[in-house]
């Protein structure tokens, strides 16, 4: 019985101790270009999907129309484009340098945006910790998060006006834009 316990305890302690020793050694991947730990992606995806499945509330995106898409596009321009890209533009230096890489929603051969609306909504609202993805629950209201979600689930088939809004927010200032946020100027240069 005593051997039992001792063997058991040593077994339990061994792995965490080895892990700490590894971290202390200075060999753990810290740079964004370092390769991931074994099983890292697998474990992280498992946790993310399990948690989102458990917490998400099913939402229906009703009333997705040109206006809501343009509104979503403007929000996207201001809050998302810096990491997730805009149509026809290469990924930003910021996006290229991050680990994990933020998915580029408008690259021609990008991963299809095939997440269901409820999941997109959950991610925009709550963010994903340890990825750089912010949660916008405190900054955007429910309607805005819905507009963004509507834009993203339709990312592959957007009308030209919406693409225009995605590429160039300042051009839209003249319109009585929905949840308007002034102009979205990129202060200097560009083009």
């Amino acid at each position, binding site marked *: 019985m005593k*051997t*039992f316990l001792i*063997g*058991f305890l*040593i*077994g*339990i*302690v061994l*792995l965490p101790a080895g892990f*700490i020793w590894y*971290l*202390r050694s*200075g*060999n*753990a*991947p*810290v*740079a*964004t*270009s370092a390769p991931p730990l074994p099983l890292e992606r697998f*474990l992280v995806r498992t*946790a993310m999907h*399990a*948690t989102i499945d458990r*917490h998400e509330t099913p939402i229906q995106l009703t009333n997705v129309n040109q206006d809501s898409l343009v509104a979503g596009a403007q929000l996207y321009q*201001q*809050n998302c*484009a*810096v990491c997730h890209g805009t149509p026809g533009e*290469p990924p*930003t*230096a*910021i996006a*290229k*340098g*991050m*680990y994990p890489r933020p998915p580029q929603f408008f690259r021609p051969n990008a991963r299809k945006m095939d997440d269901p609306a409820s999941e997109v909504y959950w991610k925009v609202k709550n*963010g*994903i*910790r*340890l*990825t*750089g*993805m*912010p*949660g*916008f*629950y*405190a*900054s*955007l209201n429910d309607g*805005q998060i819905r507009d963004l979600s509507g834009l993203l689930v339709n990312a592959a088939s957007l009308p030209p006006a919406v693409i225009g809004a995605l590429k160039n927010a300042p051009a839209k200032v003249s319109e009585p834009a929905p949840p308007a*946020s*002034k*102009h*979205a*100027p*990129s*202060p*200097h240069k560009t083009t």
Partner: protein
Amino acid sequence: MKKYLIVFIIGILLVPGAFYLYLLSGHAPVAVSASPLPFERFFARLAMHATIARELPKAEAGPPTDSDLVSGAQTYRQYCGVCHGFPNEQPTVISKGMYPHPPQFFHSRPLDSYDAARPYRPSDRKVYWKIKNGVRLTGMPGFSSSFSEQQLRQVSQFLGNARNLPPDAVAALEGNTRKPPQSTTVPKARQRPASRRK
């Protein structure tokens, strides 16, 4: 002896197994507002500091010139401010939503006044390392493939002297077209790095 080995193996498997089940359960913190796992910060800091200490560049970049600080400020404005903030401005919506929170280098405060008599500080090698390599699982990008060696150095020098910036660097940091301060509930405009060339 055999019994011993079996319990030993069970013991080894127990912790990872329980951890995996925990992740599967859907209770793991995924939302940015969820509270961190026990020891998460401890482990993360341990690994980060150990690795950076090991890979620290040997030579420290010397103190900057005024024009280094101006260039550093321009680069900061384009690539860093969206998360790390500007003087006199509230943290952006993006930075407020992230976990971990990006440190706010200007604390939304006014800048300290410039003291021309005070010598500039050399750049911090750890800061340089972070700008160059990034910090995975935080959102901090590594700019090694986007910035030149000189830009990396200038940004780290700029940050090292953020409390004592000459007027030209302040102007570069603030940009020529200042946005009016914005309320925190309205999405920000200036959040996008202006330049896409590169």
